[in-house]
């Protein structure tokens, strides 16, 4: 800021009051960001300013801003006339439900929230503070991308951020809230964070925009179809949550933070339990249809077992044949992984494998116990799946479960066939307790498929193949379609009454509260990415 004082006039004596007045003027100037006109334009688009968003996110009166006077040092392309205090990002720390979080919020009113050298330095500073203090980092993203006028300085700033995203991974939870555009290299920062919340119709994410794509490949596509919130929540899986508007996105963020520990050395957070630990749900006794071709909603099962109304799905709209999310069990934050028989019969495929493996690794990194509910007929057959690398993707689930040292408890509700049985938290990949409902079936494959393989010659030569097949299928079912076969050989720890699942799981979690599991020393493993 140029000195406004007139040199011909005698200087006012410096007083404490004048110093405070000067500070207040500078604060007011910094809080205006790109100016009132740009704030009005932001409001006209139905969007809030960077600070308004922060104030909506955190507990009232808890936000402490830092670096609000930092300006850039560049002179080219007219930047010397656009030196705005605080530059294009607001950083600081505040509280969500009384727990401290670090926040950075891109200010679209300042040069479109473009990622500058100063923005990079400020965001890096808040990341360093968060990592050292062990608190989550939340990014509120609304930016046109790199500040072109700053050239390589802007790119270097991106690199600093990506490096810190990586360093913070597995140390403190990272959440990206997409409240506007995010294009080019800048997408890698949210891509590196643990959770991405996208706002419908407002946020977009892509490496190359529609114009570049049309120039290079000739494909015509609009922003929404290319990288809108719905696309990334349903098709690509880049986003984990779909918010209807800014307010919804910020509320989702608050809710999500409630399930997460502040860092990797803290246990999963627990609230005072509000639900009956002894709640018996008789509905569970008949929720699984006896006809194996009939489906049921696994989300209903989860809702009935865990504390009422606490299940929060992650990746709800992506790979719906699997369900993952956070819930509370007697107030304790836990991770839930499940097959979903309502979609593709709960089969495992490429997308659901990625969804499950990533969630398991997050829970393990942050000490969140894992509960797995299994009703899967196996891996999805097909040329597309094989050529798409289902072997590599499916292996991620085995890797993630085998690597995880948090408490792992599995409940087989119905089908647990073949490779899918092995990868879905089976006893052999160090699952602590495997329980089964009386409807459970543990086998290499379904009865029809097995009989086709085992007795193809006998059936082709039979004078009454249908009768013969029915007899053999029944024989196979009598042999394998019962949890007692597995329980009799220790592959399943107990067969339980479905209605009693909740108290059984609470008791199991009590047992495993202080679980200690040691893995071989290594620099890091090599998960099949």
């Amino acid at each position: 800021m140029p000195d406004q004082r007139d040199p011909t006039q005698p200087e006012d004596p410096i007083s404490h009051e004048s110093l405070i007045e000067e500070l207040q003027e500078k604060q007011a100037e910094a809080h205006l960001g790109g100016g009132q006109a740009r704030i009005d334009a932001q409001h006209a688009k139905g969007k809030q300013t960077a600070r308004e968003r922060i104030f909506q996110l955190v507990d009232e009166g808890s936000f402490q801003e830092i670096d609000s006077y930092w300006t850039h040092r560049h002179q080219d392309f007219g930047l010397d006339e656009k030196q705005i205090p605080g530059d294009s990002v607001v950083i600081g720390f505040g509280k969500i439900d009384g727990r401290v979080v670090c926040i950075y919020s891109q200010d679209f009113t300042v040069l479109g929230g473009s990622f500058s050298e100063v923005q990079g330095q400020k965001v890096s500073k808040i990341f360093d503070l968060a990592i050292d203090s062990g608190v989550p980092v939340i990014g509120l993203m609304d930016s046109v991308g790199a500040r072109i006028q700053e050239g390589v300085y802007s790119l270097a700033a991106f690199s600093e951020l990506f490096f810190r995203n990586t360093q913070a991974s597995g140390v403190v939870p990272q959440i990206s809230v997409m409240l506007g555009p995010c294009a080019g290299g800048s997408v890698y920062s949210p891509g590196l964070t643990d959770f991405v919340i996208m706002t419908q119709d407002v946020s977009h994410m892509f490496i190359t925009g529609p114009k570049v794509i049309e120039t290079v490949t000739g494909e015509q596509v609009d922003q929404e179809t290319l990288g809108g919130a719905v696309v990334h929540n349903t098709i690509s899986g880049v986003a984990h949550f779909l918010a209807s508007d800014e307010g919804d996105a910020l509320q989702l963020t608050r809710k999500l933070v409630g399930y997460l520990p502040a860092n990797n050395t803290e246990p999963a957070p627990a609230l005072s339990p509000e639900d009956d630990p002894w709640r018996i749900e008789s509905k569970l006794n008949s929720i699984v249809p006896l006809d194996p071709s009939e489906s049921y909603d696994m989300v209903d099962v989860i809702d009935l077992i865990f504390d009422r109304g606490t299940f929060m799905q992650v990746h709800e709209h992506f790979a719906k044949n699997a369900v993952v999310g956070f819930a509370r069990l007697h107030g304790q934050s836990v991770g839930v992984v499940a097959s979903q028989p309502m979609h593709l019969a709960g089969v495992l495929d490429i997308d659901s494998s990625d969804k499950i493996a990533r969630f398991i690794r997050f829970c393990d990194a942050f000490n969140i116990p894992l509960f797995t509910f299994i009703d899967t007929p196996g891996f999805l057959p097909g040329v597309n799946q094989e050529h798409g690398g289902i072997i590599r993707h499916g292996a991620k689930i085995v890797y993630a479960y085998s690597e995880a040292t948090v408490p792992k408890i599995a409940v087989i509700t119905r089908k647990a066939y073949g490779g899918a049985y092995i990868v879905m938290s089976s006893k052999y990949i160090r699952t602590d307790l495997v329980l089964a409902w009386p409807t459970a079936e543990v086998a290499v494959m379904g009865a029809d498929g097995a009989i086709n393989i085992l007795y193809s010659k006998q059936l082709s030569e039979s004078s009454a193949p249908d009768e013969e097949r029915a007899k053999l299928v029944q024989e196979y079912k009598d042999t394998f379609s019962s949890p007692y076969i597995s329980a009799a050989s220790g592959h399943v720890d107990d067969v339980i009454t479905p209605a009693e699942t909740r108290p059984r799981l609470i008791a199991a979690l009590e047992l495993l509260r202080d679980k200690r599991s040691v893995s071989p020393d290594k620099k890091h493993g090599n998960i099949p990415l």
Partner: protein
Amino acid sequence: MEAFSTGLQLSLFGIVITFLALGLLILVIALLQVLFPAPKQEEETSPVSAEPPLEEKGPDARVVALTAAWWYWQNKRSSSLGKLLEKGPGKRWRKKEKA
């Protein structure tokens, strides 16, 4: 005196005849059992005979339900289910983290 002796003889004769007849009947029954052995329990097809004897029947459903309910309330009243979770992680967890 003679009348008394005759009566005694007739009585003894009657007893002997009765026991001989009884012995003969037993022999006939035994012979018939050898010739026509009784069918085994599981081979009976009559719906009445297929039902297990009264003393082998399972407990009444109402008794099962009442027992389960009693067990449930008793456990709920006296149990400490969930108390460890309410206390939070123990010392062993913290040792693990330090390691």
